[in-house]
């Protein structure tokens, strides 16, 4: 709720760095960077939902994997890319509407259950319906109908450009009157109703927005990575996204981006150890225990701001969200 200059600068720094990468790095790193941006988008999608609106989606991978798979299915059958993208958007809309409707309707813990179930059943479906999805083997997009037709730098720029556009839009949303309504729904649903807000509609809307962001990430993933597996829809990834967001610091956008980058990178680095999930798990437990507001809330000890004993820090007179 309280806007700080430091976070403002951190955001700008992240965006600028992301955009400058391609100028300095060899191709291999560009792939990695593009990957991180895609995961960051998925993290943002959940932060909008969980961080800003307080809606605990444990099925975010469904919104990521469905459009990715749709693209794969259309393209691997020789369909043109534009049709594939349109179909992906349509499929995402159907899934997001259905999941959003039922998750909102059941509310509370029901939101977790419905989203998790969606992710799990789609994962199972992708495994079983081999004719459509390739089952365990997954799908592979032909080079010609993916971003691989572009040079690596151009591919990266597409991903980075879309990524920063989404980040910018999400920040705008978070700080707008709409963000204020989300904060109010998160903080006191009943009061929102008493003030005349249609809480269910707001929840459905923000679920759709979040699904849209996750969908952009999914589509980019399909077009850049080109290899699709059922894991992209599954509860494993869905849960991991929740960890990214909490690890980095919910309701900050930048925190979840950092959380995703850190977690994914650590996973790759530690991959060689057999017990690496344990290490990641312990890291998560440590953060939740000692830095419950996430890594982004940590400051070097010398610079830690003293809180005034009376009430929270003042925030500027605008909507002051973000």
């Amino acid at each position: 709720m309280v806007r700080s200059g430091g976070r403002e600068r951190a955001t700008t720094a992240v965006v600028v760095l992301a955009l400058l990468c391609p100028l300095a790095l060899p191709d291999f790193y560009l792939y990695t960077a593009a990957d991180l941006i895609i995961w960051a988008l998925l993290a943002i999608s959940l932060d909008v939902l969980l961080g800003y609106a307080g809606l605990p989606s444990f099925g975010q991978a469904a919104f990521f994997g469905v459009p990715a798979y749709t693209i794969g299915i259309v393209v691997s059958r020789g369909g043109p890319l534009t049709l594939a993208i349109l179909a992906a958007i349509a499929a995402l809309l159907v899934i997001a509407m259905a999941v959003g409707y039922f998750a909102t309707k059941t509310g509370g813990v029901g939101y977790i259950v419905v989203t998790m179930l969606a992710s799990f059943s789609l994962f199972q479906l992708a495994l079983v319906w081999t004719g459509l999805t390739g089952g365990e083997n997954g799908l592979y997009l032909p080079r010609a109908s993916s971003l691989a037709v572009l040079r690596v730098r151009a591919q990266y720029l597409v991903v980075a450009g879309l990524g920063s556009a989404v980040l910018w839009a999400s920040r705008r949303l978070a700080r707008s009157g709409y963000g204020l309504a989300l904060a109010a729904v998160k903080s006191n649903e009943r009061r929102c109703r008493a003030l005349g807000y249609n809480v269910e509609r707001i929840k459905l809307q923000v679920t759709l927005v979040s699904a849209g962001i996750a969908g952009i990430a999914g589509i980019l993933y399909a077009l850049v990575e080109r290899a699709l597996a059922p894991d992209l829809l599954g509860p494993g990834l869905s849960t991991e996204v929740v960890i990214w967001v909490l690890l980095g610091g919910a309701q900050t956008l930048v925190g979840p981006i950092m959380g995703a980058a850190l977690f994914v990178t650590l996973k790759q680095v530690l991959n060689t150890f057999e017990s690496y999930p344990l290490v990641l798990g312990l890291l998560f437990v440590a953060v939740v225990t000692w830095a419950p507001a996430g890594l982004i809330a940590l400051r070097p000890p010398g610079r830690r701001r003293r809180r005034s004993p009376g009430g929270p820090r003042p925030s500027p007179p605008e909507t002051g969200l973000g």
Partner: protein
Amino acid sequence: MRFGPFTVLSELDLEVRAGEVHAIIGPNGAGKTTLLHVLAGDLLPSAGRIRFDGKDITFVPMYRRARLGLGRSYQIARLFPGVTCQQALQLALQRDSPARDWLSRGRCRLLAERALSMLETAGMAQCAHQETTSLSHGLQKQLEIVLALANEPRLLLLDEPMAGMSASERIELGARIRLLAARQTIVLVDHDIEMVMSIADRISVMHNGRIVVEGSPSEVRASRIAQAIYLGAANA
């Protein structure tokens, strides 16, 4: 109104006339809060009808009742943790503009300014940037009323607005309610009988989920039943 096997309101017939201040008094547990919940749409009655302005609103959800002009304050001030007073008021004000206006920066700034000036009018400018839940109890109850009034409701339901306030705060709020009464229909639930008597046009006395006496302040004051119930219970 029933909660499972417990009947909390029964055979209750309440008519609030436009323009009046209608007070509801009664001992704790009489069902006053429950009645306001039912009127505002917080609770769905297990039987009976509610009409507002001639329209049947029994099954109209709470948010739409608020939009029809039903404002309310809660007995227990539990506002918006993490949201400042100014933001809360801005939230109340933006309700009637379409969602796409919520995204407009200019529009938001405008509403934020209006929110601030409304807080100034209410004498709460110093709280503008404080979190709603960090205010003192009395201030939270005051903010509740400012919030409820933001959209100029036609009917205002106040649930014990003075409970937990200091004597001077009570007097101040009493004067405000009297001022409001000139423009607004008000249903006022409160324990401060003297205050209620001096503000209300009509008073309903509730006991065990029923209205046992209803009339003008002087009628109620004279009623033996009201004295027995109210004073008896209050002294118990």
